[in-house]
């Protein structure tokens, strides 16, 4: 199958992979919302959603149905195209990160070697960084297009928060790059799987900084200033209804899953199952074990996100900015210098 001297089988293969990844991510997202409500209920000593289906397992489907069936309202004073573009952009940006995450080792099917990664670009980490910086447009455009004071304030808050925490995030990543010497996520994960330790051992401070910044980038409590109800009513998606609102809410959870996957890949060995030699089993089985391991790591991180949300109260806006600029950035710079010194001293 070559047309224009181009291997179209590869395109089809990648297309199928993308569809599977997106659908699986959305399915997991659906149940993350359920997990959030259940964990919140357990932490607050109440039963939580338990009406729809056994243990309330059909609750996310009921929620989705409710969102779709609701009346869709576009305010007359809103900028119509941008109002529609906002949620779509938020969702696209959060799903795009999945392109560079290695979900497992290679699979051999129909005589082809299929990499469980959409694109192994040699600038993988920078790509993630670019997509993260795109994510804020969905919120800004939606907030502005709603033509509502509270939405606009919230959008501006979201933008300044994202820009502030991106810097510390980038500096934490630079320290990680200094130890790994590669920007390709595939290489980073493969090195961790082959080496004695995961990167978190070499970069404990860097991981903590990255985790806090990821939480801020996902707009999760304690950093959910853009949706602070007591100050801004509901935040940037105040004027949204029906599935557009659903997209905004969903994008937050997709972001959470994607940042969990990135953290698992960069600091916690990705698809590497500890104390297990993957060469002892068939390559396809090893890939499946790797995929399962990565999913378990993602679920653990998502649980951590939810746990923190229902434990820590929200920051004040000036506290948020102080933490970002006066604590996280100096700490990240210190971490970078320390890493550089240790590499020079060959420790």
């Amino acid at each position, binding site marked *: 199958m070559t047309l*224009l001297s181009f291997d179209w089988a590869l395109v089809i293969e990648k297309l199928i992979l993308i569809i599977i990844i997106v659908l699986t991510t959305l399915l997991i997202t659906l149940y993350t919302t359920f997990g959030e409500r259940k964990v919140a209920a357990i932490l607050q000593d109440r039963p939580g959603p338990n009406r729809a289906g056994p243990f309330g397992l059909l609750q996310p489907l009921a929620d989705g149905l409710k969102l779709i069936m609701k009346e869709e309202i576009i305010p007359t004073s809103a*900028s119509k195209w941008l109002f529609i573009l906002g949620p779509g952009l938020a969702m696209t940006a959060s799903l795009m990160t999945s392109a560079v995450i290695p979900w497992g080792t290679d699979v051999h099917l129909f005589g082809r070697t299929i990499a469980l990664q959409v694109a192994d670009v*040699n600038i993988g980490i*920078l*790509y993630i960084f670019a997509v993260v*910086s795109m994510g804020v447009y969905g919120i800004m455009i939606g907030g502005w297009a709603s033509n509502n004071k509270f939405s606009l304030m919230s959008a501006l808050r979201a933008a300044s928060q994202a*820009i502030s925490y991106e810097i510390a995030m980038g500096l934490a990543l630079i320290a990680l790059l200094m130890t790994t010497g590669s920007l390709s996520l595939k290489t980073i994960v493969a090195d961790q799987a082959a080496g004695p330790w995961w990167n978190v051992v070499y970069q404990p401070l860097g991981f903590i900084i990255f985790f806090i910044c990821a939480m801020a980038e996902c707009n999760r409590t304690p950093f959910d200033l853009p949706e602070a109800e007591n100050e801004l009513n509901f935040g940037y998606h105040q004027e949204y209804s029906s599935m557009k609102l659903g997209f905004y809410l969903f994008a937050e959870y997709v972001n959470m899953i994607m940042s969990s996957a990135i953290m698992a890949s960069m600091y916690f060995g990705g698809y590497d199952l500890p104390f297990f030699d993957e060469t002892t089993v068939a390559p396809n089985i090893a890939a499946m074990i790797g995929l399962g391991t990565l999913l378990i790591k993602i679920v653990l991180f998502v649980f951590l996100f939810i746990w923190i949300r229902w434990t820590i109260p929200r920051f004040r806006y000036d506290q948020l900015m102080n933490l970002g600029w006066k604590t996280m950035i100096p700490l990240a710079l210190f971490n970078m210098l320390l890493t550089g010194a240790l590499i020079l001293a060959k420790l």
Partner: protein
Amino acid sequence: MSIIQILFFALSAFAIISAVMVLVSKNPIHSVLWLILVFFAISGHYILLNAQFLAIVNIIVYAGAIMVLFLFVIMLINVKKDSEPQKQFLVKLLGVVAGGSFLTLLVALVKQTAQMQGRTLLMKDGVIGLIHPLGKALFTDYVVPFEISSVLFLSAMVGAVIIGKK
């Protein structure tokens, strides 16, 4: 046509249409959004030239950071169509002169490309845009300009902080 040529023409059309829309849009917010699309198209061109690092940095810095600040400012000052002040005659004249000089420059460039026709481009091994060769080149052959530009950035940062404190 090879796939690279198809991509080149598609990206060029995309870039030119978006750039025209930047100028034509009445609403400054729409202009900024079209400008972001221009940056994406140009990043696509960089990738065609095998300059992945430049492409992604273009998106991070221009589309991701600077344009967010543009949007930020425009949303805050909330430009209205009717409150836009009429430009003075001198400003219009200066605009015509500046635009005309730029047009001359562009015409000269296009003329140069006509002379280039039929020649092949010598790109050594074509990997200078990838991150490892680029880093090596920056820190060995071009280390002095690199360091000087970083000092320039530092002074700009210090200046920004001092102005911000006033």
